[in-house]
């Protein structure tokens, strides 16, 4: 790293030297920890500093767009965002690759993968989502909202908040948002496993086909995760988009022009039909829980995105002010 660290919370203008100068040979692979949209993720150790890192391998195929724009955008965003609750991209390294000459001067023609080097985190939130104490939950929620507030202030939507994209470290003390940009997978193999998992946290406006959406999409996902912490099971485990919507409407009521002006103009509104009880009864399933927590969940899971609470207001909610 060269230059000074940007002050916490400010836009990070510091670049990541000597990025690109090193190859993946500078790391010793320890184990595979996951599978991303573009390739595998490894736990590795920097041979020189001994520091642990997570290496995300970006497999570059010969797609039509050249170097994938999605990855370029993710790198751009991660370099811009500098916050204690957002995963830090330390550098980018390339695989040594093989010289791949196109007529003579072959030194600069290599073909290889690139690796995004992230700080190492112990595990993801999925692992603790169904067995955390109320004080841990509050601690995680606060950090999640702080990270998200920072993104939103900087005009960045995460768009794929879910347990697997929230990483935990420091014995459960630290939470960071991860997986920016690769979240929206355009799977080439036609599998939609990823799609289904994400579905559970997808807000009604997206399910109804809105293309013009804002920060509130992330808040919905946060609300679903918050509820899942309390219930110790997913709140809306839909298997199809249709089923996802029915599960939401069953608890949050059926949307109409009265509770959500403009909803009838959304592309898929006409395809949905009211299920029998159309009144909102979300609070009923939380009758045994801390009322401040339930109040907050209730304001995060409002159908109309413009009425949904913002990350900033959520952080000011009574839930975070009261002590356990």
């Amino acid at each position, binding site marked *: 790293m060269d*230059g000074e660290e*940007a*002050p*916490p*919370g*400010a*836009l990070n*203008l*510091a*670049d*990541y*030297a*000597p*990025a*690109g*100068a090193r190859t993946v040979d500078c790391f010793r692979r320890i184990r595979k920890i996951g599978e991303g949209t573009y390739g595998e993720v490894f736990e590795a150790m920097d041979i020189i500093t001994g520091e642990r890192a997570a290496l995300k391998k970006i497999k*570059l195929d*010969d*797609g*039509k*767009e*050249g*170097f994938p*724009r999605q990855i*370029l*955008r*993710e*790198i*751009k*965003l991660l370099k*811009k965002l500098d*916050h*204690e609750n957002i995963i830090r991209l330390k*550098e*980018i390294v*390339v695989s040594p690759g093989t010289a791949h000459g*196109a*007529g*003579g*001067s072959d030194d*600069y*023609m*290599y*073909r290889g993968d*690139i690796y995004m080097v992230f700080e190492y985190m112990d595990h993801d939130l999925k692992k603790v989502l169904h067995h955390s104490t109320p004080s841990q939950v509050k601690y995680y929620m606060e950090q999640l909202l*702080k990270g998200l*507030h*920072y993104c939103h*202030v*900087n*005009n*960045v*939507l*995460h*768009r794929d908040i879910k347990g697997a994209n929230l990483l935990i470290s420091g014995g459960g003390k630290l939470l960071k948002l991860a997986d920016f*940009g690769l*979240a*929206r997978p355009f799977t080439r193999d036609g599998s939609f496993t990823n799609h289904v998992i994400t579905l559970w946290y997808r807000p009604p406006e997206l399910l109804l086909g809105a293309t013009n959406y804002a920060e509130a999409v992330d808040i919905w996902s946060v609300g679903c995760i918050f509820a899942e912490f309390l219930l110790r099971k997913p709140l809306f485990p839909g298997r199809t988009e249709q089923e996802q919507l029915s599960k939401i409407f069953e608890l949050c009521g059926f949307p109409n022009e009265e509770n959500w002006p403009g909803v009838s103009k959304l592309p898929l509104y006409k395809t949905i039909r009211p299920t029998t009880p159309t009144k909102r009864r979300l609070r009923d399933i939380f009758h045994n829980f801390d009322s401040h927590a339930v109040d907050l969940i209730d304001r995060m899971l409002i159908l109309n995105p413009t009425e949904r609470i913002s990350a*900033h207001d959520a*952080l000011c909610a009574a839930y975070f002010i009261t002590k356990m």
Partner: protein
Amino acid sequence: LGCGGGGGFDFFGFGGGAVFPIDSDEFVALLVEKEMDHQPQRGYLEKLELGGLECSWRKDAIDWICKVHSYYNFGPLSLYLAVNYLDRFLSSFNLPHDESWMQQLLSVSCLSLATKMEETVVPLPMDLQVFDAEYVFEARHIKRMELIVMKTLKWRLQAVTPFSFIGYFLDKFNEGKPPSYTLASWC
């Protein structure tokens, strides 16, 4: 992932510690410092003045980039970035003398990277090659060249440009009031 341009930074203390608002003097000082990382290597200007290979490559490349840029109606920042990448690359790479195709490949790659960084609608690299295409390159070749460019630029693609300072100076000229239409039209 949505990412709008600009955007002010507010003073909510959620991050803890000092926060520079986007128009503060400290922020601009930091920008000036960082701008140094996004400039061509020392001696580049002299090389250009001597009229070496860089000079003719640069002239032809910019010529082509400008044509394609206006053909697609891209924004000003992607033009600036494309030329910034081109200059930084030319200043730190030993150009092969007998590879005129590489000059064209470099132009395509710089423009392609810049549009992917900045534009909302991005044509495929194949479709960028619309003028005077003595050579037409496949996407996989462009990808490789893009990688070489990014590596040479040390992955520093989010360059500090004059655009980064406009907000600050507009604010100063106008004593903190929102810029009037007349002032904005001069910029």
